[in-house]
């Protein structure tokens, strides 16, 4: 890594972070002043000792009243300083929490608006950790690292000032002798961090092995083959312990090195001070004061070295957070939106081309996914999209739903370009039912209301009735209040589809985009599903991505896609008569599902 550029980038990252969350930087100057006053409490005692020894504890002349008076002043300063310290800690803590709260909200909003291309399975975990663990590294930093920089920084500053004011030569001696401590700590710290990285890695490897041992237990039992896996796991247990112990030993050397330098510095100060003697205006009290101040001065150094790494981690976390915020969001919202005419909606595609190549993270060549598609779909027509996987069916459906914008060309709904339609209106009039519908781990009613939060119970019931789902709903333990489990896991795949269809019906859309499920559902749900589908699509412009050709055969019109182009267009009967791609696909599909032998 290049150091100067790195540092420059760090400063830039921090500035940007503060810009995004102004709360973080608000009143930081005042907070620093409070911290400065607060650190005075720690130098009061050394100063009091110095004053007492020099002016109150002369041999044969002990002035108790003088020392008591000084003590009173010192006590008052300590109390004032501690109030000030409290303000500093409080101010920093509150502005941190407010600032991080603000960043989190910005992240939620931004991530929800990222295009679907940025929301694939692989990136999901990364996005979640941006708002959880990455922000948490910032929380950790602000609750400890930043506090150390602030409080210990001001303490070192104040202590150095007091030392210099006592005797600048002794102060320089103290700084010079303790300087190598920085280097020693820094190198130990680096080793420690490396050792902990190894320890962390071996720890996660251990958990991985254990979890494999446990989840593979039935397989291992079936073949009585525990031995190799168990011994492998125990090896991982041992190497985890070894790496932790190694890190512990490095830490054991790091920790007391500050003390070693403290005693060296004290001895150096005493020797230099005694040699210089009274001549330089040095007093016995100042010498003793120095001894006390040495500890105050060295205490923060050890913490600083630990905090440096924490700071780097936090800045790296902030950088990742910022890079998410830098990722452009999905289709931009319409400026000067045009209202969609009411009533059924027709769809027109003009010269549509699309490629994912514009994304920086795809290494594939810029092969367009869709090429020059032009066609028009009259209102209320039922369309089936058919084609091999990768032919562009899903992308075409997404473009119509404006979940992405075409690279070239336009999608018109009833003559209005989709990018001119206000998002809320578009979502009311056009609904997408994906292949694997997502359900929130709440009740069925919650999931239905997600489509239309202001729907009444009557609305829900009428949709249920409309899709002929009454029987199914009444068979559920709690009717519409039945909990569906994580991702709807306590429902069957078919039942999840039913909920998704009812959810779509609730918004009473004019256009329906359906991605048919590939996974087989049980026969009973199949019947309910096709009934509900028929009721839902009746009278609505419908585009279905058909995986089963039996579905395609039922549509008004079939579009066959191949390598991003529409190669056939017509009804089942017409296409079967033509004996081209569709007829071939259909024949293949029939044999595949036939009884073998």
């Amino acid at each position, binding site marked *: 890594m290049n150091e100067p550029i790195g540092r420059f980038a760090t400063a830039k990252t921090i500035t940007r972070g503060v810009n995004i969350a102004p709360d973080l930087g608000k009143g930081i100057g005042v907070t620093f002043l409070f911290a400065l006053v*607060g650190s005075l409490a720690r130098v*009061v*005692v050394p100063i009091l*000792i110095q004053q007492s*020894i020099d002016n109150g504890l002369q041999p044969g002349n002990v*002035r*108790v009243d003088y020392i*008591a008076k000084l003590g009173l002043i010192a*006590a008052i300063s*300590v109390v004032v300083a501690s109030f000030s*310290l409290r303000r500093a*800690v*409080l101010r920093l803590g509150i502005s941190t929490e*407010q600032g991080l709260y603000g960043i989190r909200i910005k992240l939620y*909003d931004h*991530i*929800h*608006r990222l295009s679907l291309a940025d*929301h694939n399975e692989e990136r*999901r975990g990364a996005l*979640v950790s941006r708002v959880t663990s990455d922000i948490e590294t910032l*929380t950790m930093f602000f609750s400890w690292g930043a506090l150390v920089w602030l409080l210990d920084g001001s303490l070192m500053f104040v202590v150095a000032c007091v030392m210099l004011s006592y005797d600048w030569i002794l102060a320089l001696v103290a700084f010079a002798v303790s300087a190598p401590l920085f280097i020693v700590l820094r190198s130990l710290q680096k080793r420690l961090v490396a050792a902990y990285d190894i320890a962390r890695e071996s720890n996660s490897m251990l*958990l*991985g092995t254990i*979890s*494999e041992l*446990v989840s593979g*237990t*039935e*397989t291992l*039992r*079936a*073949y009585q083959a525990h031995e190799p896996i*168990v011994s492998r796991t*125990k090896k991982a*247990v041992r190497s*985890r312990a070894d790496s932790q*112990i190694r890190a*512990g*030993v490095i830490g054991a*050397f790091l920790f007391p*090195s500050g*003390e070693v330098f403290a*005693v060296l510095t*004290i001895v150096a100060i*005493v020797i230099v001070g005694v040699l210089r003697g009274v001549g330089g205006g040095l007093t*016995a009290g100042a010498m*003793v004061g120095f*001894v006390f101040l040495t*500890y105050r001065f060295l205490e923060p150094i050890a913490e600083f070295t630990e905090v440096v790494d924490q700071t780097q981690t936090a800045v790296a976390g902030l950088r990742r957070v910022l890079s998410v915020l830098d990722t452009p969001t999905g289709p931009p919202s319409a400026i000067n939106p045009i209202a969609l005419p009411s009533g059924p909606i027709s769809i027109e595609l003009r010269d549509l081309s699309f490629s994912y190549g514009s994304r920086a993270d795809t290494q594939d060549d810029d092969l367009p996914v869709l090429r020059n598609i032009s066609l028009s779909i009259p209102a209320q027509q039922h369309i089936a999209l058919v084609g091999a996987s990768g032919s562009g069916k899903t992308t075409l459906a997404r473009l119509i739903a404006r979940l992405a914008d075409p690279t070239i060309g336009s999608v018109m709904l009833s003559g209005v370009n989709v990018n001119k339609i206000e998002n809320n209106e*578009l979502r009311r009039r056009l609904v*997408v039912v994906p292949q694997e519908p*997502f359900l929130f781990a709440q009740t069925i009613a919650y999931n239905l209301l*997600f*489509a239309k939060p202001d729907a009444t119970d009557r609305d829900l019931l009428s949709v249920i009735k409309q899709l002929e789902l009454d029987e199914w709903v009444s068979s559920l333990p709690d009717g519409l209040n039945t909990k569906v489990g994580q*991702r709807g896991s306590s429902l069957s795949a078919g039942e999840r589809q039913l909920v998704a269809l009812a959810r779509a019906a609730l918004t009473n859309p004019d256009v329906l985009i359906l991605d048919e499920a590939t996974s087989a559902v049980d026969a009973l749900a199949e019947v309910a599903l096709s009934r509900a589908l028929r009721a839902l699509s009746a009278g609505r412009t419908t585009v279905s991505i058909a995986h089963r050709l039996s579905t395609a*055969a039922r549509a008004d019109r079939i579009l066959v896609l191949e390598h991003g182009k529409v190669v056939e267009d017509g009804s089942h*009967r017409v296409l079967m008569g033509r004996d081209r791609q569709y007829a071939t696909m259909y024949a293949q599909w029939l044999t595949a599902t*036939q*009884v073998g032998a």
Partner: protein
Amino acid sequence: MVENAVDDAVTSDAKDGRGRLKEATRLIIEIVKYHPRYFFIAVSGATVFAVCTVASSIGLKWMIDRVILVRFNEGRIDSSAIVVGSILIIGIGLLRALGVVVRRSYAGKTEWRTAETITNKVLDHIVAQPVKWHRQHMTGDIVARCGVDADASVAILAPLPFSSSVLVMMLVSASWMLYVDVPLGLLAVTVFPLLLFLNIGYQRRIDRYYNLAQRELGTLSEAVHESFDGVMVVKSFGAEERETQRLAVITSRLRDARIDAVYIRSIFEAMLDAIPSLVNIALIVIGAMRVKSGAMSVGDLSSFIYLFTLLMFPLRIIGYLFSEIPHSVAGWSRVREILDEPIMSDPLVLIGKTQTGTAIEISDLFFSHTPESDLIKNLSLHIETGRTVAIVGATGCGKTTLLHLIAGLIAPQSGSISLQDGGVGLVFQEAFLFAETLRFNITLDADVTTAKVQQAAEIAECAEFIDELAVGFDTSMGERGVSLSGGQRQRVALARAIAQDRSILLLDDTTSALDPATEAKVIRNLREMNGHQTVVIVASRPSTIALADEVLYMRDGVIADHAAHSVLLSRRDDYRELINAFEHDRDSTASLNRTNEKDI
């Protein structure tokens, strides 16, 4: 709401505070015995550290009285005193540092070696438990007990030597301070318990807020995960703002819990800074009176205050040490739950031996998951050696359970199972591959020749795609290894079963993820395999069923019929219906074709 949660925690805490101390003591006694030598060395190091801390003030007193004051009050440089003082200060300082090194190294050794011992104990225990036990526990939970909980139990060992050294330090320094000057010593000593209780009280209070914040963070990550997971739904209903709003409410709860913690923390930090300084000031003022009365020297007073300053650091962090206790006690009790469970008996011992010519003989078998209803009731069957048999039945009729009973993974409630010699190779519905090489996954480290592995892969129809991999059978399945499709994984699992060379192969819908052509090839390969291997297949694809020599038709927990596929088709309506249901897709299209024809 937040306040309530905290209040509840307060009352429940006060109630079992004493019980917890008892538990902690028991925990310490139980786990220190695993590696007592390391622990003893660590405590010795800690004791050296404690004694040297007190002794270091003696070195300072020497320096002040005999070097500094002599120089500034009498103008004399006593070089021998300087040498002695320097040696005292540096020597004691180095010894003190050495004590820390020994203490910390060996505390770490104690902690992690003990963790290793405990984890291995738990591993041995769970490996000995049969499948039934594993099915009663969640994978994540067992893993947590081997890992996180074992680590939590030993977390108390790391600060233990230090805590004991703080005790030693307090005792030694208290006696030394009282020896130097009684009134001053008394004043200093009263601060120990004061700071100790302030610390413990603070730690308890702040922990509650931290725990609360931790819970809120858990809720938040769950909600965020779900919300991002469902981004498609969020987008298609234009619910971006609503979702952000929902997450904002949860986030604000987290923020508020943390701000509450900051309030408490800020007070504590300020008090922790102020109290020692105020006591120090009092010590100086009273000390001045004692110096005036001649009870002590200036050096005595300075070193007294120096020692007092040195003691503040351990007292500052002692509360943190106590905060580990509940965590460790909870972890240990979860580990003990596993270790204290008796090992269940292995169902494999119940399996008998058949006479020659019979592969599987089952009579009067009963099995149920719940006491209310039997899944398998009074099932009997007989399979001859060398046959390929399909088990057919509706979803949930107990086919998989039957295979697991035959494989000896689970035990029946009653009835008997006998198998021919040579063991069973079971291929599960979901193939499980280990994060090792393909070869390991097939051989399971048993003594299997390379030729045998190759042959098994060919029979399972996975040799071809394995050959295409750069390092073939040595390809790793680990995190950075290749990812195979479901069908490929199943074929590897099948190759494993074949390579293990068992006399009976049980395939649980293994080939369903393959395309029909590959599936047919695999089944033919299996039939052509020479030897006397018996193959039992749970199947739902009509083409697969048709390939079997005979079909066991399972219904209502018994074998309803046993004959060739064609025979069953012709003589049983319910069987025909089931096969039709399996073909549902083809059926619906067929009817559609008919209507089309009519239209024309």
